[in-house]
């Protein structure tokens, strides 16, 4: 298997500005209307009465390109594929019947449905547009792989993408440790705030694919 591609996210550098979400919509020509390949959530903790410990943490999330994706498992038409070549999870819209099982199975809310009723989601910018990326050349073999739009326009420099091995080079020890016990392909720095924003979820076993 080719090296797994993934994202890197540091909540301390995320300003919650949503540039990532709009850059994503621009690139993939996705109109407004609840189709969000990427979104930013805010996780509060504490109360005003103890304001010195009140915290809010920003979390920018998209498809986690899981090691063993639950969406792929439940897809009745095998439209969803975890690619051997780069680990990116893609959807073949020609095979998708819009049943919504994947949406139900995904713990991160990644699968989205456009006006055509077909599933669309983050493809790590393998290509542009809903449903694109299925059958595309591996990111590992492309001469100039497209930088994901969300990474390219991240104002705070909180997001990065690439082969997981390279991303781990810039990650803190704690982030690497968390990643090793986490079934997604997203490396998340611990927030200096206390909130554990993305709780590791038991949705599969981590592949040891050079990542």
């Amino acid at each position, binding site marked *: 298997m080719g090296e797994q591609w993934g994202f890197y996210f*540091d909540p*301390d*550098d995320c*300003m*919650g*500005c*949503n*540039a990532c*979400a*709009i*850059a994503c*919509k*621009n*690139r993939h020509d996705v*109109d*407004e*209307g*609840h189709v*969000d390949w990427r*979104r*930013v*959530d*805010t996780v*509060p903790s*504490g*109360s*005003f009465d103890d*304001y*010195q410990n*009140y*915290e*809010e*943490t*920003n979390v920018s999330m998209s498809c986690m390109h899981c090691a063993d994706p639950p969406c792929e498992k439940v897809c009745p038409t095998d439209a969803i594929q975890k690619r051997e070549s780069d680990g990116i999870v893609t959807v073949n819209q020609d095979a998708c019947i819009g049943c919504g099982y994947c949406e139900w199975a995904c713990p991160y809310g990644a699968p989205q449905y456009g006006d055509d009723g077909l599933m669309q989601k983050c493809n790590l910018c393998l290509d542009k547009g809903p449903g694109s990326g299925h059958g595309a050349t591996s990111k590992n073999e492309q001469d*100039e792989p497209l930088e994901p*739009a969300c*990474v*390219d*326009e*991240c*104002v*705070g*420099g909180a997001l*990065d993408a690439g082969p997981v091995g390279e991303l781990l080079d*810039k990650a*803190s020890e704690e982030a690497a440790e968390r990643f090793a016990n986490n079934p997604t392909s997203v490396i998340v*720095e611990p927030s*200096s*705030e206390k909130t554990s924003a993305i709780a590791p979820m038991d949705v599969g076993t981590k592949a040891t694919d050079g990542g």
Partner: protein
Amino acid sequence: MSGRESNADRGSNLTRRSLLKTTAAAGVAASTAGCSMPTLTQSSSASSSAGNGETTTAYGNCWQCHKLCGMEVTLNGDGKAEELHGIDGHPRGSAGEGTKGTLCPKGLSQLEKAYSPKRIKQPHIREDGELRKADWDEAFEYAAKRLQDFDDEYGAESFVEFHGWGTAGTFSTLFGNLYGCPNHVPHPTPTCFGSMAVTGTLMGLGGGNIRWIDYPNTEYVLVWGRDPLETFAGQWEAKQLLDARDRGATIVTIDPVYTETAKKSDYWLPIEPRTDGALALAMANVIIEKGLHDEEFIGQYTHGFEAYRDAAAEMTPEKAADVTGLDAETIREVATGFGEAAPSAGITSWTGLGQSADHQKASQNVVALTGLVGNIDRPGGQRWYGSSKLANPFEVGCEYDVPNNAEGKQCHLTDKQAGYASMTGKPVQNNVPKMVDNGDIRGMVYYYRNPVTDGAAKEWLGTDGQDGALDKMDLVIGIDAFWSETARKADVVFPESSQLEKPMLGAGGFGAYNTQAWVTGSKAAIDPQWNTKSGFDIVKGLGEAMGYGKYFPWESKEEYIDDKLSALDLTLEDLEEEDTYVLTGEYGYEKWKKGDGSAKFAQGAGEFWFDLDKKLDKLYAGLSEKAGTEIRTEPQYLPPGTLGDSLTDEYPLEMLDTRTVEFSHGGDQALAAPLEQLAESYDLEHEDYRGNYLVINTRDGDERGIDHGDMVEIEGKHGSAELMAAVTEGIRPGAVSVEPYGFGRGSIQPDEDGANNMLLNPPGRIDPVSGQIDRHLAVEVRKTGGDA
């Protein structure tokens, strides 16, 4: 934060383009031939790229919040803009040389704006009481005739020019110099942060300079009534603030609202609104007691320290804690940290301390801290940015001397005898409806400005069958991009192209390069959409129809810009070859120091003034009379309600308002993507509502039966408005924040969802010193509906 990379270190993110840029910067005119991305070709203008079948790159400078962040525009084979990206190293859109440039959500939304079907698509003129479509020549002729008739009947002194953030460069030349209208409502006073800006200038810091910190060198940052991670003046500011934090600088946010910047701060001080003056004096108390003040600077370069010291001595941290709702020990800690780090310590403040009658004196106390610790234009302190000087294009390109036909005509806004100006002689926008009622003003032109969301909204728009000022005026001319109630009440509407459709230019100034001046500019990336024109072409066309054609000799805005750039021996073409920007020269610190050892501060005096007795003794005597309490010229704490609104049993909550990162000055409220992102940021995107939000503490919500997502009415003595509640622990109980301001009635939000909270602002509710409209109003909030 150790072990993290700063933005500046993330070299791996840089594109080949940016690396070449760094090389090119050494020689300003170095060619960048061949530096475009391999699959792209460079376009030389909007029209030449259209339809040749290849993907091309054009440039832009974002104008959504008027800060000119550089953009690279990807055009498809038909010349349509497909993607927008930031420019590495850009003075406003990056953290500086060798760092990555980006675009914020406003910048990225320019794609939707350019092609939005909600835009005003062609000129309109009023005929038989109705607005109807017209072609450009007809609209120009019609407007010129109406202006001539107006001048004949009432005189140009009965006209007001509302200058917003237009890009023509010639708007005031046409209406002020040539048409002869003396009434001009400028920015920032009286609608931005006048209470702070006027005070900051009078003291000698400079009105705008309380915003700017020398981030690359700072060790301690007080973010005081501003949210630079959300309302940054160009993305450089957010990036450099995050870098300073990564470097170990301490960040303190002083704000009743848990802002985006508060999330990244070491301290959040949720201060009771309008008590900032007490906190600032208490900090001075601690700094002086611990001997952390700059005795040399104070001795040599300031006036009025004794009176300041005495005022500070009375405000102990304990006393301030009672007033501000903060903790005395925290006040001591922050004051000590700031004092010890100074002069490498700075304050960034803005509307949070600039929009209330009670802020005027509070901001004096805050600005006084900069003199106390001697951080003015010193490394790591308040930065006085230098700037590139551009040529006056009329002197370069126009062979006729531009007259000043407004000379000698009464300016109702600023002539003191007219009775409408503020106590410092500044224009009071809120007085314009009264001028209309009195017959002094009978017409107006506005360009990229909408006064009805600034204040006195009822008086501008009318209500309950009563005509507003816009209805009563004989002539209203608008240059605008989206329909609003203001535009619909106008007699002539000129549709303006958006930023991607017009050439842009700017020089600075504040930005990522803290010791280097710069200039940035770009040609139009795409052609004007529908039947629109750039502001420059609108002013030129109207000027020609009015008989002033000889003063507008330029064939295009590009020619006009090139005349401005001639002072730097550059052209717009040169700037595009340099990825939109060129650094033009270095400058140092302590610019208030003159060569002969003397000093000159922003008010023109040789000393920074803690005490305003040299200029404002009479003013404060008058103000004392008005307030029924002694208001002195030196720093002094005035409790909320001394000059501003007072909270009562009937109206026990304090309403304030903010901007958010998706919107600036109302400029993109007609766009779907930013509206949806705003809703998502409050986790309310699934509601059928795309307005602004009333942020309210859980405790205040519970007392009123208000849940997150309920529709609520805010009511004050003067009016009311309805919007959706966002309930959170992240705001001080007793304060409610309208986020962002400028929605609802009169806005360009197509369905007018949300609240124009200035429906609650009575015209007289202003800061009498600066004329700033007071946005801190006493309100009650009640639930009007469940989930919308």
